[in-house]
């Protein structure tokens, strides 16, 4: 399947869903900040990659896909979409590792802007490479 940019999902999505993500993301960020304070940078660091957003994304995706299906026998569409999204996330996890290593190597040497730009770029490239290699092996 070809990679494409589909903005119809934005029109179908509600502001309530975006607000829900905002509140959830804000809560998780506050919680990880508090964990770092209580557990120190080691425990807090581990929780920076806690699966907080992914489960919510999978559930919302499955619901959205199932809501578009009229035929009750075709309700596996949501499950199939969640399987694909979870597989994609498993290929982005090595990229998250690359992000962490890039931050670790540069944060004490570079100005903050370059640290986040560099680590963000490293994550993007590693995620694209990981995904591309996976797709190539499926052919």
């Amino acid at each position: 399947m070809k990679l494409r940019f589909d903005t119809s999902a934005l029109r179908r999505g509600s502001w309530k869903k975006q607000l829900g993500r905002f509140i959830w993301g804000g809560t998780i960020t506050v919680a990880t900040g508090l964990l770092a304070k209580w557990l120190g940078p080691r425990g807090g660091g581990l929780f920076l990659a806690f699966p907080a957003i992914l489960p919510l994304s999978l559930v919302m995706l499955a619901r959205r896909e199932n809501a578009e299906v009229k035929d009750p026998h075709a309700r596996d569409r949501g499950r199939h979409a969640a399987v694909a999204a979870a597989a994609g996330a498993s290929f982005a996890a090595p990229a998250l590792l690359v992000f962490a290593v890039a931050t670790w190597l540069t944060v004490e040497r570079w100005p903050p802007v370059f640290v986040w730009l560099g680590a963000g770029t490293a994550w993007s490239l590693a995620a694209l490479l990981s995904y591309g290699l996976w797709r190539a092996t499926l052919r």
Partner: protein
Amino acid sequence: MSGGALGEMLFRFVVGGAVVALFSLGGDVFKPHSFGGLFGAAPSVAIATMALTLHKEGSRFVATEALFMCGGALALGAYAVTVSWLLRHRRAAVPFTAMMAVPVWFVVALAFWLVVRAT
């Protein structure tokens, strides 16, 4: 809780919420779903948290956080593989499966913690 601490938490909440919502939009607009899934493991919380922590605690603190985030990332990979496998091979609902696989993250993260502590 002092006013300064409350203000900092509010700032974290707003920045974290905005970054996470922005990355989540990426997952919505890209097709196929497997590519959109890449955004499920995006460093959204990490960027928001570490950028704010760097300002407050300094670069040494963030470097240690980043090192231990490596364990969290490995654990997240194990979690995503487990969810994908369970959804493909078992008939349980998506919310149930997504929650039931969370202990996998804790086991791998704890293993990383113990290995790094021992070395």
